């Protein structure tokens, strides 16, 4: 087998990206869990563990750069590596959104939420599922799956708009609820941004396959 070492390096990089994706998914799930249950310790854990995710991003970026330097890949192999490096950044950003949610949890820990959390946990679940499917599409080099995942971002966008509309009505009804509504609005926004990052990941999966930058 020609260039077995190189193939092994690429496979290893894919596995590491998969691991990073899982860790970010876990962070997001914990962040929303901490929000639902006002669990400050869990929220703090998400914040503390973000360093590990940041380090993973740096390590994987270095690993990708090293493969480029040592193996000088071209064509499809090069596109996959460029995509990997871009995807890692988007995954890390999703991790940052989990941290933002965790920080909001801590900030709101002593307050009564202005409404029961229904859509926000649903959005988090959707975002995490999209992330895991997008990373799988990268690892499996499956652009069709990536296109499908990107399409589902519309649901997340629409849910966010609906949440904003609903929270606006709370704010209009009672100015005392403005602060609480704003906090939830930010959280919804973080989750909506998660979907945007997943969509970027999907676009890089398509780029790796076709060399084209498509807006999905």
């Amino acid at each position, binding site marked *: 087998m*020609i*260039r077995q070492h*190189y193939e092994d390096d690429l496979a290893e990089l894919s596995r590491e990206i998969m691991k990073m994706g899982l860790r970010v998914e876990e962070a997001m799930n914990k962040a929303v869990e901490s929000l639902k249950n006002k669990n400050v310790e869990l929220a703090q854990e998400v914040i503390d563990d973000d360093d590990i995710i940041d380090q993973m991003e740096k390590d994987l970026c270095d690993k990708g750069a090293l493969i480029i330097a040592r193996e*000088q890949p*071209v*064509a499809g*192999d*090069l*596109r996959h590596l460029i995509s990997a490096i871009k995807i890692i950044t988007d995954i890390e950003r999703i991790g940052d959104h989990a941290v933002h949610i965790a920080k909001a949890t801590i900030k709101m820990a002593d307050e009564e939420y202005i409404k029961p959390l229904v859509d926000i946990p649903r959005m988090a679940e959707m975002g995490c599922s999209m992330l895991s499917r997008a990373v799988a599409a990268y690892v499996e080099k499956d652009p069709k799956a990536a296109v499908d995942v990107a399409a589902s971002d519309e649901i997340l966008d629409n849910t966010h708009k609906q949440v904003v509309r609903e929270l606006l009505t709370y704010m209009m009804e009672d100015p005392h609820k403005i602060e609480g509504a704003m906090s939830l609005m930010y959280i919804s926004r973080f989750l909506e941004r998660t979907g945007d990052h997943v969509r970027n990941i999907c676009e890089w999966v398509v780029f790796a396959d076709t*060399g084209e930058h498509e807006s999905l």
Partner: protein
Amino acid sequence: MDKTTKINVKDLNLFYGDFQALHNVSMDIREKEVTALIGPSGCGKSTFLRTLNRMNDLIDIVKIDGDINYDDKDIYSQWDVIELRKKVGMVFQKPNPFPMSIFDNIAYGPRTHGIKNKAILSDIVEKSLQQASLWEEVKDRLHKPALGLSGGQQQRLCIARVLAVEPDVVLMDEPTSALDPISTSRIEDLIDELKQNYTIVIVTHNMQQAGRISDKTAFFLHGKIEEFGPTDEIFFNPSSPKTEEYISGKFG
């Protein structure tokens, strides 16, 4: 045929006896561009290169059909072979200076073409060595043996020797494969400069070199052109899976 086409090859078939080395090769080589020919050993790329200035005429068993036009004239019926080889020069894999002085190496071609005037010859030698980025290194020892130069200098000398007869096209058959990385990079820089005035066709086994220096790349496989196009496309998004496998080092 495009007006900037320097050499046009159409349906070229080449046989070594019963063995067909090139199959229906067609290619437009554009003026003042670097065209790289890549492909695994035995794919026909060097055979193709040698056909462009009729070097294959020297091999008895070679039979050729198809059209090769240089400056719109058929190289077999409308060009005198000596004149053709003057216009379409060649640099080989290993530097092959003649066992004479640096000056005489460069002056050899012009002398063969009838130039005897010393002042004119000196001008040609200086100009050619400058174009080949060798002048500064050898100007004080022009009458010393060329074989005393380093490998990289010898190869630049060979390029200068080709340039001395004022060619139009320079064919290069793996010109850096016998050179160290620094000499290779000097030759690559030189190719980049030369393309302002010359059309260059280069055979290379070094994928990165083709990627670095050429405008167009042709990938030869089993005597056929598998893919030919802008180098950027060939190296970033080739259309043939075979090209992709080859340039990615998966076979060859």
